Structures are given as structure tokens and as C-alpha cells.
């Protein structure tokens, strides 16, 4: 508290009990502490309001007049902008486009209407604030607060009215009504709970484990739904693939969210995984497009690095290493669809997906 070894009397410093040190020089850590006594006063004195400081405009008539002019200018700007709005509304053709700084080529009518209207509203608001701050009274005023409790007489009266009503309804004398009413009101809560629990929908069953793909399903282009020949897929190509017949299913969009596949052709020499080669067809490989993190469509294929990037959280899969996760939050590699060709040379699935596609879920782990 004091830095020159001159103790002052305070509630925490009973006189003569504290050894004083010259704290202007360095002290060891175990010295120089002041031991308090825990003496907290019963009540702090009300410090009252700070002294009122007058504003320029309160005692200088010139400043007040200046403030008046400033407020009037702000209101004037608003009025001018409003007039300008009306002029623009009628003068500027609605389909005229022209260059506007900061915005570029844009519809000039819309821009001028928006700008003038916002200036007129802003002018009113800023003028009001400036008026209140400079000229309206700013002295602190004490507002007395009165007790909110009603008079004792009124309170008893209210209770009596309630009791009289109960007596008149004979609720105490007729327990049959009392208990059936209680039962009816209590049961009324059940429909609310039943709807909540009952509307959670059916359990997903095996839907999370299966897709439309099965052995023999042809690979078709999205969105044309035309089958793909193995010879169509040149090295460096990427095809967005759906299973044939997906448009005939009950909920094609739901099925697409699970069955979308990305088909790529790599130079077989670039593929490092034997399983990937075996499940592909001469370097044509098909992978689920549904990210194993939270199910975004993984579509950003870089044909030089063979990286597949998910646009949502930047999970990166290496297609040369069986879509191994090489960056980002995805938990496991993208599932590969085993493909082959049918007798007409069209690509088809040789087996369904060997594992559930998309993000992990509770039962899968």
C-alpha cells in the first residue's frame, strides 16, 4: 500500500503489528506481506452522485446554437435524401444498368433508391441522438420508488374471493368431481408425450448398411443415366456415377445420397494398392462419393496428384493408396465399389459395397 515504509492506518493494518519493509528495493518472496485481520466494515458509506459536469451547450449560448444547427443539418440531410428518393423513383428507368463505384455494373434505380432511403433514415436517427446528447437536459434526477405490495386489506379480499368461489363450486364437498377433473387434466399430458416419442420415426433398420448397388448393377452417368463403357473412360477422366435404376426406386434422392460414386481412371502403374487394382478394371476405379466424415460429396479430384478433396472440411483421400485419408478429419478411407464389365463392355458393379458408406454411426463404431 505504501512504498516508502511509512505505514498508514487502515482496516487491514492494525498499528504496530506489521513489520515494514522498504519495498522500493527488491525483497525476498517470504517478506513484505501484510497480514489482514478480516475486518470488513458493517456498511460502506454512500458515495453519492459524482459532481455534475456541465456540457458546453449548457452554459455557452454559442455552443448551444452550434449544436442546434448541427441537429438541423442532420434533419435537413434526411429531408433532402427523401426528396431525392422520390425524384430517383420517378426519374430513373427501372431496367437501366450502369457502373457504380464500389458496386460495379448494377441496376442504378435499385442502388439509388436504397442509398437515398438509408441516408434519410440515418439522418433522422443521428439528428435525434445529437439533439438528445447536446441540448436535452442531462442532469441526474432521483426518481423515488414506492413499494409495490398491495395494502393488507386488498390482499385478504382477493383470497376471500377465491375461497368463496371454491365454496360456491362445491369442490371440497364433492370429491368425485375433484378427482375426475384431476385425472382428466393429468391424462391430457399423455397425447403430447405420445406424439413426441411416437413421431421419432421408424428405426433405420439396415438402411445405413446397404445401397442400391448390387452385383450386376450397371454404372450410369449422372444426370443423364446412360451406361458407361470401359473404353469411354480415358486416363485422367472423372465420371459422376449413379447405379442403374436409381430413378425407379421409391426415394431416388435418398438413394443417391448413399449410392453416388466417383469413377476415375488412373495409369495402373500409379496405383499402389493391389486390392484397389483387383477391385477396379484396368486402372478404372470407383469410390463412394460420400465422405466418411459427415457425408459431404467428395468430388474435388486432382488428376495430377490423384488427391480427392472434400469441400466441407478438407479431408483429403489418396486415390493411389485405396482412398486412404492423408489429411483432415475423416475417420476411414472411402469405400471402393468392386467393378467389372459385362459382355457388352459396359461397366457394372461386381459386388455391393463391402462396408457401409458415409460417416460412422453408433452401431458401426
Amino acid at each position: 500500500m505504501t512504498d516508502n515504509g511509512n505505514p498508514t492506518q487502515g482496516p487491514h493494518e492494525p498499528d504496530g503489528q506489521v513489520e515494514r519493509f522498504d519495498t522500493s528495493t527488491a525483497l525476498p518472496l517470504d517478506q513484505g506481506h501484510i497480514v489482514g485481520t478480516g475486518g470488513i466494515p458493517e456498511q460502506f458509506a454512500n458515495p453519492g452522485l459524482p459532481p455534475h459536469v456541465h456540457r458546453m451547450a449548457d452554459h455557452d449560448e454559442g455552443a448551444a446554437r452550434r449544436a442546434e444547427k448541427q441537429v438541423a443539418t442532420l434533419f435537413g440531410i434526411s429531408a433532402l435524401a427523401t426528396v431525392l428518393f422520390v425524384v430517383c423513383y420517378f426519374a430513373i428507368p427501372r431496367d437501366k444498368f450502369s457502373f457504380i463505384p464500389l458496386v460495379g455494373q448494377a441496376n442504378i434505380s435499385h442502388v439509388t433508391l436504397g442509398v437515398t432511403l438509408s441516408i434519410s433514415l440515418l439522418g433522422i436517427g443521428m439528428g435525434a441522438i445529437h439533439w438528445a446528447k447536446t441540448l436535452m437536459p442531462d442532469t441526474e434526477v432521483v426518481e423515488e420508488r414506492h413499494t409495490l405490495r398491495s395494502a393488507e386489506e386488498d390482499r385478504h379480499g382477493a383470497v376471500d374471493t377465491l375461497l368463496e368461489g371454491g365454496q360456491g363450486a362445491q369442490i371440497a364437498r364433492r370429491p368425485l368431481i375433484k378427482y375426475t377433473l384431476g385425472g382428466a387434466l393429468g391424462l391430457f399430458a399423455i397425447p403430447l408425450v405420445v406424439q413426441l416419442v411416437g413421431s421419432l420415426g421408424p428405426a433405420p433398420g439396415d438402411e445405413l448398411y446397404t445401397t442400391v448397388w448390387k452385383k450386376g448393377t450397371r454404372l450410369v452417368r449422372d444426370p443423364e443415366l446412360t451406361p458407361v463403357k470401359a473404353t469411354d473412360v480415358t486416363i485422367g477422366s472423372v465420371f459422376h456415377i449413379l447405379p442403374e435404376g436409381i430413378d425407379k426406386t421409391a426415394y431416388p434422392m435418398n438413394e443417391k445420397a448413399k449410392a453416388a460414386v466417383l469413377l476415375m481412371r488412373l495409369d495402373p502403374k500409379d496405383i499402389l494398392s493391389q486390392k484397389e487394382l483387383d477391385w477396379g478394371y484396368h486402372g478404372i476405379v470407383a469410390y463412394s462419393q460420400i465422405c466418411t466424415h459427415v457425408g459431404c460429396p467428395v468430388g474435388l479430384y486432382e488428376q495430377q496428384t490423384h488427391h480427392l478433396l472434400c469441400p466441407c472440411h478438407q479431408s483429403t483421400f489418396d486415390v493411389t493408396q485405396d482412398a486412404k485419408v492423408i489429411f483432415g478429419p475423416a475417420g476411414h478411407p472411402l469405400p471402393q465399389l468392386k467393378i467389372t464389365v459385362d459382355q457388352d463392355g459396359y461397366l457394372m458393379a461386381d459386388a455391393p459395397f463391402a462396408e457401409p458408406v458415409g460417416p460412422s454411426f453408433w452401431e458401426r463404431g
Partner: protein
Amino acid sequence: MNSLAARRRHPAAIVVILMLGLLATGGLYVLLSPKTAQAAVATADDVNQGKKLFLANCATCHGLKAQGTNDAPSLVGVGAASVDFQVGTGRMPLAGPNVQAHQSPKLKYSESEIRDLAAYIASLGPGPAIPEESELTGGNQAKGGELFRVNCAMCHNFTGAGGALTRGKFAPALDDVSGKHIYEAMVTGPQSMPVFNNTNIDKQGKADIIAYLQGLDENKNPGGITLGRIGPVSEGLFAWTFGIGLLIGFAVWLGRKAA
């Protein structure tokens, strides 16, 4: 007829028949085979001019026979379309070693020089040709939009605003790219971009995509700052920084006592 019939067992007959058959198939193949379209027929002179340009400007990296070096890929078989795209958009010659060649408005070569270079590279091996004007027009915007959203939007954004790829690479914005360059990019797959050949997206589909992108270019701004028109990310950022900043400024002004 009789003399022919008499000589049908002549030892030379089989050779004659064989030659005739080969000539017929060869001739038919030349007539009927799918031709790689050339915008302007390249002459030997163009090829020679192109070779000179190549040796003077490109061979340092791509090799004297365009066979590729450690620094640059082989250009044999990339086709005229690839040359026209890379040089015609200012990506080549490369300004400097980087993860990705950048588009540049300042082209290093004139249109005829690019044509010569393309003719020379096309003469090294068959590859995609520069598309003809008729292949770039007449597309259906709605169909193109659908194709674009399936095949292109994951990298280039649904309004063609571009986007980030891995490790500093990016998919460029597609506004004001000419139809020819859009087509060439699809058939050649420059840099990170995969190839979308004509068996994947057919010629009509490519024209549709070009029509969609050119329709986006013609889309006029109805008013206000567009913030890239890429949706809630840029708009949210603007609202949170500028909008809330403005509110805080007014709150401070309101709370301060006037002088």
C-alpha cells in the same frame, strides 16, 4: 470377264485381291473415320513456324522434341487444344515455378503464333483439336446448369466463382472465359483438372455448359454489393464485421457524454 475368270487361279491373283481389299478398307477408313476437327487446316509451313517458335521458347523445359523433362511434361499427344488453352490464356509460358500456372491477360504470342505452335504440337501425335465455332454455340442453359452442378461445381463453385484445392492449388473462377477455352479445358484437363472427354460429356453437353457459363456472365447485378455471390459465407462475414462494427460504433457514440 472371261479373261479375268481364266486367270483367277493365277499365283498373282491372291496378291492383287489382297492389295485391292487393303486399299478399299484403307480408303474407307480415311473417308469414314472420326476426324479430329481443325479450326483451320494446318499447313506444313505452320508446323515449321511452330517448330521454330517451340525450339526458341519452350524447348528449355519441355525438351527439344517436346518429350518432356524433369521440369515439364511431355507434349506428345496433348493436342492442339491443349496448346491453344495453355498459351491462349497466358498460363504458358510459365511465369515462374509454382504449384499452379496462373492465367494472365498479357499473352506472349499472337494468335497466329499460337496457331503455329498448336499445329507443331498436334503434328507430334494425335490429340484433341481446337474446337470449331459451331461446337461452342447453341447450348441449352438449363441443361448446362444441371451438368455444371454435377460435374464442375464441386471445384468451380455453382456460380463458377472458383475455389480452393489442396496445398495451394485452386480451381479458377470461370467468369468471362471464352467458350473455346472452356471447351478446351474440358477435353484436355489442364493441370489439376480431370479430363471430361466427349464420351463423358458429349459435344452437346459441352455446348450446354458453355451456354450456362455465358448466361452467368450476362446475369446483371440487380443492385448492391455482390460479395462474390457465393452465398452465406461472404455475406455472413460482411454482416458480422461491418454490420456489428457499425452497431458498436453507434453504441459508443450514444453512451459518451457530449463535450
